């Protein structure tokens, strides 16, 4: 169940061209053959004014694993942005059209990935590739 994540960075901002390409197959922690085989995929609209949990750290199953998180700001107004926070520490801002792809340690119950929208309601898509999720009993 291979999932491949590829990136291409290209720019003409230096006197010579920047061209960086890379690809990785998303594996479980420490494995060369056992692929990350679980994922969540979502799309949400984030209103301004509140810092929300986008992903809750399920550290019982994901602490120090090879989780990968993709977040994209699908807003089109260039002044719109979201602030991404992990464990109350701000990672950075995703402006309209920006995306991020990060590993996620989920080291304890407070290590949630949080998101807060600014300027207006931001539309966000996200994916979480993981090794397991504790389901809540009905």
């Amino acid at each position, binding site marked *: *169940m*291979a*999932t*491949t*994540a*590829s*990136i*291409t*960075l*290209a*720019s*003409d*901002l*230096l006197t010579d061209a*920047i061209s*960086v390409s*890379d690809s*990785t197959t*998303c*594996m479980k*922690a*420490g*494995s*060369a053959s056992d692929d990350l085989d679980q*994922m969540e995929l979502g799309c949400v609209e984030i209103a301004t004014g509140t810092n929300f949990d986008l992903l809750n750290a399920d550290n019982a199953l994901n602490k*120090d694993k*090879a*989780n*990968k998180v*993709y977040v*994209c700001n699908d807003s089109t107004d*260039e*002044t719109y*942005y979201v*602030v*991404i926070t*992990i*464990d*109350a*520490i*701000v*990672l*950075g*801002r*995703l*402006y309209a*059209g*920006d*995306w*991020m*792809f*990060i*590993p*996620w*340690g*989920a*080291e*304890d119950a*407070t290590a949630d990935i949080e998101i807060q929208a600014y300027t207006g309601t931001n539309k966000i898509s996200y*994916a979480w590739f993981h090794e397991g999720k504790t389901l809540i009993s009905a």
Partner: protein
Amino acid sequence: MATTTATITLSSSDLLSDELALSTTATLTTAGTSTGITQASGLSRKTLTYGSSGVIDTSVIYRADDYTADKANKVYIKNTSSTAAEFFTIFLTGDRATDVHGNADPGLTEIGRLYAGDWMFMPWCATSGTKETFTVTIANTWAAGDTFVFDGVTVVAADSTVNNIAAQIDAAQYPNWVTSVSGAVVTFVARYSNAGIEIDTTEAVSTTAGDGTGAVATTVEGTRSVSDIYIKPSVHTGMTYETMLIHE
């Protein structure tokens, strides 16, 4: 105008019952505008090696003090290892001043682990802390040949005028401080945020033949940065990462 694009493709033919094929291209612009971002560190490569597994420590990749906060900065980091079990842990300076969460690295907030071949691309707020600031006031009777010593730099007074001596102290270049001068008062500002600095006359030493003084007074207490980016290898035998920062 420079054009910088970042494209991600996430694909899988068998993770879901239908094919996963997600591709997004971001044209990187300055914060809140359509103007292309114009500065980059260039791609760099570094190997971290330690004497034994017991002395593996974190190292700083990027210091927030060197960049402008709350902009549209982006960081790319790759673990070049091909050994599946080898990983880098990526951190930000955090609020883990104590080990209250059972965290192995108090003082840092873990983002996550980059296993062999993995890469990451993230926004970075580059929020720095506060730089320690203090003043040195040159006063009373100084003479040519008197000295002021600080941060490994020795300034020898060229004459006895305190304003001139303060100007000489300001003109010197200090490894860890930048200076400005007003009259006989020299202001030192740390190059990097740091909560652990306290300067007094045992570090900023004035030696005079007469009763000349260089009184030291802290005017701003430093605090640590809250978003320096750290990296820590899982093994001591040499792990290599590549990185690039695109910033404003």
